[in-house]
């Protein structure tokens, strides 16, 4: 029997809706579960105390602080390097030169390298190679490398979206290339660059594998420093979960809420910037 068109269309819509439901429900179940477990433990102790063998007084303060430090360092490293690379590739590089093409292919491929590989790289070159040791700075640096391709790609797209007529207008007024780039192209590209950087940041601070590899420690009871040993929120969650007492599972759930709150705030901020500065040329 032949299906009528309306039926086919309806069926297709149904399939699409179901697919959407899979993603949505997973998220809801996850959130409900986490909030159910974690909410009672989401208190000042979690935010202000170091971890402890006693679940009643244990918190995640060092990990939360370290995640904030890592995030700040990550941004401070990745934005200038990523934007500078993007400017070079879009505005200065002669695309017919082989080394520029090589660079481009390289960056595209780097974006697809698994994060654990970055961890190995960090261990070999940063921790041992230049002897930085298993410190927070090394963690921030390795996460920088990890998200750098994402930032470069986002910044390039933002720069490319600036219409050429703007550059021409600048040149026609006697601006130098640097003046055109710094005063016209970059300001116009900032919303796109900011959005891309924030999304990269939230990917970076959610990472666990590379940090474990370069030796983020699971039990740290003091506030982290840039050049000291550290742990990070995802690792802290993992180590809570491995402890035998049931309360630690709930503490882990509470820590997950904190991590989610940080990530969702960052993403909301990115969306806000994108909408606020959306431009029609």
């Amino acid at each position, binding site marked *: 029997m032949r299906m009528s068109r309306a039926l086919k269309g309806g069926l297709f819509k149904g399939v699409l809706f179901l697919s959407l439901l899979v993603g949505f429900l997973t998220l809801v179940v996850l959130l409900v579960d986490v909030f159910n477990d974690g909410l009672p433990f989401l208190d000042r102790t979690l935010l202000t105390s170091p971890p402890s063998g006693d679940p009643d007084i244990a918190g995640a303060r060092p990990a939360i602080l370290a995640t904030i430090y890592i995030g700040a360092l990550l941004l401070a490293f990745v934005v200038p390097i990523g934007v500078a690379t993007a400017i070079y590739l879009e505005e200065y590089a*002669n695309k017919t030169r082989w080394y520029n093409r090589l660079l481009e292919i390289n960056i595209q491929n780097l974006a697809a390298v698994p994060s654990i590989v970055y961890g190995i790289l960090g261990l070999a070159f940063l921790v041992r190679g230049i002897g930085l040791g298993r410190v927070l700075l090394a963690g921030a640096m390795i996460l920088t490398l990890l998200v750098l391709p994402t930032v470069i790609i986002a910044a390039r797209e933002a720069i490319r979206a600036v*219409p050429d*007529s*703007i550059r*021409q*207008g*600048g*040149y*026609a*007024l*006697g*601006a*130098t290339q640097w*003046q055109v780039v710094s*005063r*016209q192209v970059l*300001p*116009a590209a900032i919303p796109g660059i900011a959005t891309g950087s924030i999304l990269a940041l939230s990917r970076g601070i959610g990472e666990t594998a590379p940090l474990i590899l370069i030796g983020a420690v699971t039990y740290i009871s003091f506030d982290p420093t840039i050049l000291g040993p550290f742990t990070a929120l995802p690792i802290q969650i993992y180590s809570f979960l491995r402890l035998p007492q049931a309360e630690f599972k709930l503490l882990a759930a509470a820590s997950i809420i904190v991590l989610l709150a940080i990530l969702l705030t960052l993403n909301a901020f990115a969306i806000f910037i994108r909408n606020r500065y959306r*431009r*029609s*040329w």
Partner: protein
Amino acid sequence: MSSIEPMTLGQIAQEHDEVETPKREVVFAVEDLAVAYASNVAIREVSLEVYKNAVTAFIGPSGCGKSTFIRCFNRMNDLVPSAKVTGNVLYHGKDLYADEVDPVEVRRRIGMVFQKPNPFPKSIYDNIAFGPRVLGLKDNLSDRVESALQRAALWDEVKDRLKESALGLSGGQQQRLCIARCLAVEPDVILMDEPASALDPISTTRIEDLMHELKREYTIVIVTHNMQQAARVADMTAFFSVDVAPDGGKRTGILVEYDRTSKIFTTPADKRTEDYVTGRFG
């Protein structure tokens, strides 16, 4: 206009033709110029002189290289990697393409207004101030901005909203803003590539009136598709056409005729010009 009979282009042109142009100073002398994009020659064998305090119009069918040609005067073609300019462009007797000439310096003296208004995504004030700022002309910036807007006949419309985005202006206002932006750096010459083609008739008239005003202080070169416009504003007119190679292959722009506008529109010397201005071609 009060006449019932529509005026011919020749009459329009003669209406503002100055009786006898005194010996005009030559601003640009173009000698045997050719521009190629990679191996495609867009325009070749062009020689003409552009005079001070006059409006010079370039007309001709699409693709004959008018934009390519006008971009030679401020070295905008340098920004197209494949473009190669040969021949000479002398500006007040000096070769614009000499090795020691800095194209950035050239563009400070010779401003350009584009076909599509291209305001920067900044405030009206910052748009005008951009040029002076990059040139380091920082004192009396607001006076400069005001005077540029005055001369571009835009001041009254925007004086209360200088801090607002220039993207909120109408198309015609945006184009006058671009003219003001260009005036703010006090250029010697203003190049305009079809400045009114994206505008409504009223805005177009305003821009044309403006050109009459501006030519007292500046030298103006304009590309236009609109022959009425050329007849109305230009003192000198150059007609370009496309030369198709005998085998029907390569198309190259050439200069057919260059003369006083009144002459071009009443008694052109070349048959091709006559066909074009009377609408029999292109």
